[in-house]
């Protein structure tokens, strides 16, 4: 069954030889003659290279001359050349979304090089499909939106402070929101930083000083973000400080809420006195309140286990750091570190690891199936290299516990509509390629909120998140893509199926009307909602059911 021609639709078909890349393997004359027979086709032309200046010009000339209102190019692949042909249409006064491409090179002439007849036939089908779809295309528009050039950073640790300072230095107004009463985050609880050999106050004070002096930075300490509304470019956040609420507008949000050390309740007779964590050790060291002579440190306490599967990245270096500081202060102190793998990756860490060995820190590997035991006086462990138990007298036992997610991580995740993983760390847009982004535009991520990181890494990520946010803030206006989903409010039953599948947080449920609505700025046009919608109310313009059906019909008709 062929579609009857729609009177008002005039399709121009441009068929590219691509030198001999297409013409060498397919019957071009046949394709041209075939295209002329298709419904709605008003004009057909063969080009040596449609993408060359000459070819583009022919499209631009033919549109007004032949009164074309749809254009199909049969050539290489839309993945590389669609933007070029779309802009040619636009320049000729045709809405660029009235363009469609048939792939007759990458997916036809090049893969059927030895099957001239069958290859030509497939090319015909692909052209017929493109023409049928083109006839169903509608004009689409890219909507322009204004935006706020201000940013909000949630969390005033070293990552958040670095992010805020970088954005301010780029010229953007920044609101830095910290829930504690002072900036600095977990650095405030530390004793000393290696390899710089500096007290953390120095770094914190430097950053705080520059932030306080910066005219573009507004610091909100003792404050929490209780609500965010809106979307990329246009957020309204409510900041609560004591009993007052403040609403601010911002274009981008950076999540830098950090993490907290695990308290190892119930492990190794943890008591916070003789058996302590590193963070507790560092507070004691700050006060000069440690007299132990035989110190044992156990790694991976509460991590790399069934319950908490991840390696917390920084505990090995924390242990090595504290061991070095002890040894430097009193070389007679006996220090033994019980470990599974010493995670001293990279240049600086490995250097510290070597240094600690030079200073006489003793390392003992343990098998996670036979972990060390502590009886109050000594640590005993099965020594893998010797093949028997060894006993280490211990008057202070330090447990290397992992960083775990903040208590409010899941709340913030819900508020900003960005995901967290099973451990409560925020889940980036792509583990490798988008480590500081979320799938949702306008929200960015850095520091321990993403995953435990060193100070060096936290600073770097803070700057990186600032750079990602600046990608939005630097725009004069935001444009939606033309190809976005739309939900018909008259038929939507408010089942929320689309809200559940949308990976970009782009669909809102409008409660008072009981329907779902697409935020066209956030929509990336994946069409998941359209496939899910039971009532057919959600539709992806440019890839709608009617358009795809037209393609399917032609795929079978030829």
């Amino acid at each position, binding site marked *: 069954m062929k579609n009857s021609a729609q009177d008002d639709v005039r399709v121009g078909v441009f068929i590219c030889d691509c030198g001999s890349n297409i013409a060498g393997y397919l019957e071009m004359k046949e394709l041209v003659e075939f295209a002329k027979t298709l419904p709605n086709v008003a004009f057909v032309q063969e080009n040596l290279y449609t993408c060359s200046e000459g070819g583009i010009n022919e499209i631009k000339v033919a549109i007004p001359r032949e009164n074309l209102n749809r254009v199909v190019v049969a050539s290489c692949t839309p993945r590389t050349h669609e933007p070029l042909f779309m802009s040619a249409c636009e320049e000729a006064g045709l809405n660029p979304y009235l363009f469609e491409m048939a792939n007759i090179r990458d997916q036809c002439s090049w893969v059927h090089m030895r099957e001239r007849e069958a290859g030509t036939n497939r090319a015909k089908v692909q052209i017929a499909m493109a023409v049928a779809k083109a006839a169903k295309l509608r004009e689409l528009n890219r909507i322009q939106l204004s935006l706020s050039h201000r940013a909000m950073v949630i969390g005033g640790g070293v990552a958040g402070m670095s992010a805020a300072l970088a954005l301010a230095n780029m010229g953007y107004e920044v609101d830095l929101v910290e829930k504690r009463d002072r900036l600095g985050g977990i650095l405030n609880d530390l004793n000393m930083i290696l390899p710089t050999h500096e007290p953390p106050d120095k770094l914190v004070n430097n950053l705080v000083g520059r932030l306080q002096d910066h005219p573009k930075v507004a610091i909100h300490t003792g404050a929490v973000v209780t609500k965010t509304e809106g979307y990329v470019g246009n957020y309204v956040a409510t900041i609560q400080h004591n009993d007052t609420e403040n609403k601010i507008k911002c274009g981008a949000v950076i999540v830098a809420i950090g993490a907290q050390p695990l308290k190892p309740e119930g492990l190794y007779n943890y008591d916070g006195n003789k058996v302590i964590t590193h963070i507790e050790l560092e507070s004691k060291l700050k006060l000069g309140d440690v007299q132990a002579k035989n110190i044992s440190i156990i790694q991976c306490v509460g991590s790399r286990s069934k319950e908490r599967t991840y390696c917390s990245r920084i505990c090995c270096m924390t242990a090595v750091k504290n061991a070095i500081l002890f040894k430097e202060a009193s070389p007679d102190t006996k220090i033994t570190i019980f470990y599974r793998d010493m995670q001293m990756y990279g240049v600086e860490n490995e250097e510290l690891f070597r240094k600690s060995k030079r200073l006489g820190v003793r390392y003992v590997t343990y098998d996670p199936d036979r972990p060390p035991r502590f009886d109050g006086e000594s640590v005993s462990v099965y020594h893998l290299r010797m093949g028997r138990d060894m006993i280490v007298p211990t008057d202070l036992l330090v447990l290397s516990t992992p960083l775990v997610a903040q208590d409010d991580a899941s709340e913030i995740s819900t508020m900003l509509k960005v995901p967290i993983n099973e451990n409560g760390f925020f889940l980036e847009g792509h583990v490798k390629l988008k480590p500081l982004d979320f799938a949702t535009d306008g929200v960015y991520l850095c520091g321990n909120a993403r995953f435990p990181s060193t100070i060096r890494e936290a600073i770097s990520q803070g700057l990186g998140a600032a750079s990602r946010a600046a990608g939005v803030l630097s725009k004069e206006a935001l444009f939606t893509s033309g190809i976005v989903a739309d939900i018909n409010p008259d038929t939507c039953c408010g089942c929320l199926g689309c809200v559940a599948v949308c990976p970009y947080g782009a669909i809102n449920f409008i409660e008072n009307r009981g329907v779902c609505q697409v935020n066209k700025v956030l929509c990336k046009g994946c069409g*998941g909602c359209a496939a899910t919608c039971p009532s057919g109310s959600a539709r992806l313009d440019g890839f709608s059911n009617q358009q795809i059906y037209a393609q399917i019909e032609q795929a079978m008709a030829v």
Partner: protein
Amino acid sequence: MSDSQFEPKIVGFLCNWCAYAGADLAGVSRLQYPPNMRTIRTLCSATVGPHQILKAFQKGADGVFVGG
């Protein structure tokens, strides 16, 4: 009809970002395969709904390939 004469018509829904890119790459690498597929480009394999797959079978497709 004997097997050797049977030429199935396969409708392939290919995600623009992966399977469609892969099919392009097959071309760039000049990998040869039988010309039985007709490609429909989608912006995500998630957009391929049951209606579209059923439509393809209804119209006579012998197979449907969803690549994403």
